[in-house]
């Protein structure tokens, strides 16, 4: 029995190694994948570099964990402080900014808290808090969640003291949007996930445009000194492609319903 079992494992390991020569794993955030941009970029990467990028779609917290353990070759996330800690800890060799999109506030169409004409993102949050209007938080330690928490703090509000109107669902962007749609409740989402979301129901985009809502994505190859099995050469090859003019054109021209989602801002790799 034991032989059969370990034999089966060995067979799988070999079958795995025998796959196409260039395969790498990258952990990305749910918001990046839900935006649909991955479906545009990956086929082009496969064509240009003959590189099959396998995506693990997780929250930023888990993505960083996977990178630290050496289970992926690179990560593409959007939480600056966590990224810098990742590089400082020696888990990533460096951090390269690729592009940004922005966060938007979604809420019930009739806008009970009146955030539509708020002067700033923090003012909009204060209005929601004053009205005790239902609010759905990701609550999953993702980049979006961390951003939301920092905005509450900037507005001078303490999340821990919130009442029953504040719902931390501990789920990905799509699942959280589903919850908000069902309640209906206010929620902070990245623009791309919102535009691609198929179950909008009573929800509408109510507030956007404050510069603090910009959301920078960065690419971090996992440090090969830490984990000698990671495919650092492939990760660097991908980085070169992601910072190239080719990626720039694809990213800047990606639109949903005529709206640009991401703005490319990478500097050519030196």
């Amino acid at each position, binding site marked *: *029995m034991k032989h059969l079992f370990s034999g089966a*494992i060995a067979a*799988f390991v070999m079958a795995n190694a025998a796959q196409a020569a260039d395969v790498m794993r990258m952990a990305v955030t749910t918001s990046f994948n839900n935006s649909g941009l991955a479906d545009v970029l990956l086929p082009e990467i496969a064509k240009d570099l003959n590189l099959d990028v*396998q995506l693990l779609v997780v929250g930023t917290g888990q993505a960083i964990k996977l990178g630290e353990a*050496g289970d992926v070759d690179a990560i593409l996330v959007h939480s600056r402080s966590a990224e810098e800690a990742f590089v400082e800890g020696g888990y990533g060799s460096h951090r390269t900014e690729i592009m940004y999109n922005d966060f938007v506030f979604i809420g019930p169409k009739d806008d009970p808290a009146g955030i539509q004409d708020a002067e700033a993102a923090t003012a909009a949050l204060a209005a929601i808090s004053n009205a005790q209007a239902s609010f759905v938080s990701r609550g999953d330690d993702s980049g979006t969640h961390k951003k939301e928490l920092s905005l509450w703090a900037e507005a001078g509000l303490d999340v821990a003291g919130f009442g029953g109107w504040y719902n931390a669902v501990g789920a990905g962007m799509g699942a959280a949007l589903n919850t908000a749609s069902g309640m209906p409740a206010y929620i902070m989402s990245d623009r791309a996930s919102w535009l691609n979301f198929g179950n909008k129901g009573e929800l509408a985009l109510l507030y956007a445009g404050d510069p603090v809502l910009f959301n920078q994505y960065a690419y971090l190859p996992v440090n090969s000194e830490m*984990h000698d099995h990671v495919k650092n050469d492939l990760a660097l090859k991908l980085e070169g492609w992601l910072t190239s003019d080719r990626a720039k054109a694809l990213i800047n021209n990606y639109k949903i319903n005529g709206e640009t989602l991401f703005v490319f801002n990478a500097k050519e790799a030196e």
Partner: protein
Amino acid sequence: MVDIWSGITQAFWLVLTLDAELFEIAGRSLYVTLTALAIACLISLPLAALIAVKRFRARRLVIAVLNALMGLPPVVVGLIVYVILSRSGPLGVLGVLFTPAAMIIAQVIIIVPLITSIAHQSIRDLWQEYHDLLISLNVTQSQKIRTLLWDSRRALLTAALAGFGRGIGEVGAIMIVGGNIDHATRVLTTAIALETGKGEFALALALGFVLIGLAVAVNLAIHWLGQTEREGRW
């Protein structure tokens, strides 16, 4: 209700047009769960018979633990298997994390207690019936086990099908150890979770109906092959 109806029609069209992606993930679902089932049966059935015929000190404890493990939360199994197979874990050198092999390992762990417990129940009943006969024939332990397994094969089939059901519909563990990677480890259940996350309820439901259909088809096929439920055969 609109979603359910459009889910049904979408499922119908996906199957009718032989959608390549659907067949890929459905095939992977079957491959993972059937392989896990085969391995689990090889472990569970002899183990169940052994527990039934052999008297040893910790027997009650083993039975109780197996029964309790039937309710093992898949997400916990997934997490444990992940930690073990992770590159920084003890079996990281195998490099099987985020491959179908890792998913099979997790499912084996999930369904072994279930199959063993159900199989043990029926083998024990049969053993009470056969006890005097087999003892008087003075057969060896392994002959006892083989006789019991063969004569309770119909009940063991039910145990295996219960294991199949638990495996094919499982999402928590394979999401963690498989990673739901497109064209590598995406199966029906993780695809359903993904489409639900995107708010694409109709497509998610369509995949759900395909999953239910698949489970029914496999059960029917096994019953047909085993020629059960026929007059005079049961």
